[in-house]
């Protein structure tokens, strides 16, 4: 089981940190030059943050699952070195003209805000403490609101204020339920653990924007500026996913599996229903999707020590990446295909781990909860059918192989090709253990 924990950590850090780096750099600005420049800056920030997080003491409130052992520190160090290598490569490899382009004031504001968001999000992930993570999540929401105020006016300020209020209130609820969970006496409180677990997980899910975004009565993301809403909900979901994943490892925590599975299926249905809604960014939808999948992963994390939660997270990425790219092809005119770049960056994850994890995961899901597995696969099929009907089957555009794209692809490959090599021996051991414990997949 020790190996499984190690792999879970490895996958976790691999999945969380690289997408952030790729996404922020590529998304932030208009035009390839600004994107490459932003990526350069973000990589430098990443080095500092990961180095800092390697020194942080792990002090999760109720449990120390992601403890500050040698492997975790090593991973953080590796990620810092990877970011450093990519920075150096970018500096020497990129055409000079990429770094010297004129930018208007608005894109500079964009850049500043996104750097702040990424930094806060990274800290929230790096800090292994429930309260501090909640604190960072609230600060993220406040930054988003400030972004609304700086760049927009009127209704979007109201939307930003509404979003901030909801996040703050649910964070408070999470703190109270964490206190309740801490005071669970084992012998004489049959319902308390369940009650506080439900309260805690539901409030975290709500923070991540599952319900605020899907409830038509609130409709917050429609009013939020499209780019801010998309990136904000995406980044906000990263620390929340990290917190949710850790929750499932607490000794007193009793995940209410059926409630959360229902949430997942509702959110999947919501994604499918809103496939044609042009007002909603596909990034918003993908963040809902990620949160839903991580919840589902967390349910199973209780059984197999957390590795499948990470696998699910990756599966969500790999399933969504090409679809998101296809969707962005449709929106090329009004959003300059930036979402496609994000998805491309996300899909640069270790391929071996993904395919292995998907097969084992589906096998496990079908073994333990066949109804839920069939439902989810059916929803995926419906989603694919809808996309196919609309003719969105273009995976790659003709101008795929110019120099700038080669550059970004090169960075993705440089950072992600090492991890499959490192993980391959672990993956083999995990598969052996899985077959031993669960009778084959």
């Amino acid at each position: 089981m020790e190996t499984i924990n190690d792999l879970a950590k490895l996958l976790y850090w691999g999945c969380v940190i690289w997408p952030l780096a790729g996404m922020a750099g590529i998304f932030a600005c208009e035009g390839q030059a600004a994107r490459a420049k932003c990526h350069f800056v973000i990589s430098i920030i990443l080095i500092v943050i990961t180095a800092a997080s390697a020194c942080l003491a792990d002090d999760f409130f109720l449990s120390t699952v992601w403890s500050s052992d040698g492997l975790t520190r090593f991973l953080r160090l590796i990620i810092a070195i990877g970011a450093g290598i990519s920075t150096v490569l970018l500096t020497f490899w990129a055409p000079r003209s990429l770094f010297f382009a004129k930018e208007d004031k608005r894109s500079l504001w964009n850049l500043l805000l996104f750097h702040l968001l990424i930094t806060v999000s990274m800290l929230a992930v790096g800090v292994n403490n429930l309260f501090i993570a909640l604190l960072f999540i609230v600060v993220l929401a406040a930054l988003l609101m400030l972004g609304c105020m700086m760049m927009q006016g009127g209704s979007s300020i109201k939307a930003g204020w509404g979003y901030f209020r909801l996040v703050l209130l649910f964070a408070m609820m999470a703190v109270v339920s964490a206190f309740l969970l801490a005071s669970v006496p084992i012998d004489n409180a049959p319902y308390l653990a369940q009650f506080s677990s439900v309260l805690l997980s539901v409030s975290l899910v709500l923070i991540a924007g599952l319900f605020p975004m899907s409830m038509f009565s609130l409709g917050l993301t429609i009013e939020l500026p499209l780019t801010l809403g998309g990136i904000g909900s995406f980044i906000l979901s990263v620390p929340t996913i990290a917190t949710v994943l850790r929750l499932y490892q607490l000794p007193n925590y009793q995940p209410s599996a059926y409630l959360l599975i229902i949430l997942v299926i509702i959110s999947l249905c919501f994604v499918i229903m809103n496939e044609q809604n042009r007002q909603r960014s596909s990034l918003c939808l993908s963040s809902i999707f990620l949160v839903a999948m991580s919840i589902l992963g967390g349910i199973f994390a209780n059984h197999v020590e957390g590795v499948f939660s990470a696998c699910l997270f990756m599966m969500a990425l790999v399933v969504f990446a090409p679809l998101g790219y296809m969707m962005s092809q449709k929106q090329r005119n009004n959003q300059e295909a930036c979402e496609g770049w994000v998805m491309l960056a996300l899909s640069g994850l270790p391929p071996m781990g993904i395919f292995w994890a998907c097969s084992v995961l589906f096998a496990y899901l079908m073994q333990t909860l066949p109804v839920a597995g069939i439902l989810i696969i059916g929803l995926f099929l419906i989603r694919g059918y809808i996309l196919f009907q609309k003719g969105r089957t273009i995976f790659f555009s003709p101008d795929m192989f110019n120099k700038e794209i080669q550059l970004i692809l090169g960075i993705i490959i440089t950072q992600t090709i090492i991890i499959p090599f490192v993980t391959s021996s672990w993956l083999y051991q995990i598969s052996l253990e899985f077959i031993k414990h669960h009778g084959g997949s």
Partner: protein
Amino acid sequence: MWLSLFISILLLATIGGMSHPSAQSFTHSILTIFCLLAGKENALDSQITVGCMILSFASGVVLSIILRRQSFPRSFKELFSGLFFVILMVSLIVYILPPSLPRLEYGIVLSIILIGMVYSVLGKTVGGQIMGVACALNALSLVVGLNGQGMAFIALVSFYSVFLFMSYVVVSRLGRF
């Protein structure tokens, strides 16, 4: 005994409110301080309790300054929905919590947070929305102050400061709506 009394009055102040948010915020923070004083003997960490008192008082003063030109009407519908939530939450939590915990207090605190949430989401004016969040934050400071957890206190301090800053920004930008 005293804690239960004060906390009940705090609940009433949350439900009933006043038409003037400035006065309500000050009253609410004073009542929170009374609650913390009443429960101070049984608190786990007296320093954190004192810290929460100071926080609550400071936020009350700042909010009463920020909200001095605001007003919000509170309809019968809101009052009744608040009462309904109180009855539901308190009875549910008293049923769920074991006798070793202060069941009534936890129930009332959770219901204050829920009522604050409902008022904050449903509130039509900025003043009413800010007051809803402020009530919930005061209730949270009660929990943190009596249970004494250092990290939670740090989180509470930053919740308060971010919230106060944002409410100042919102009142200055949206105050006329």
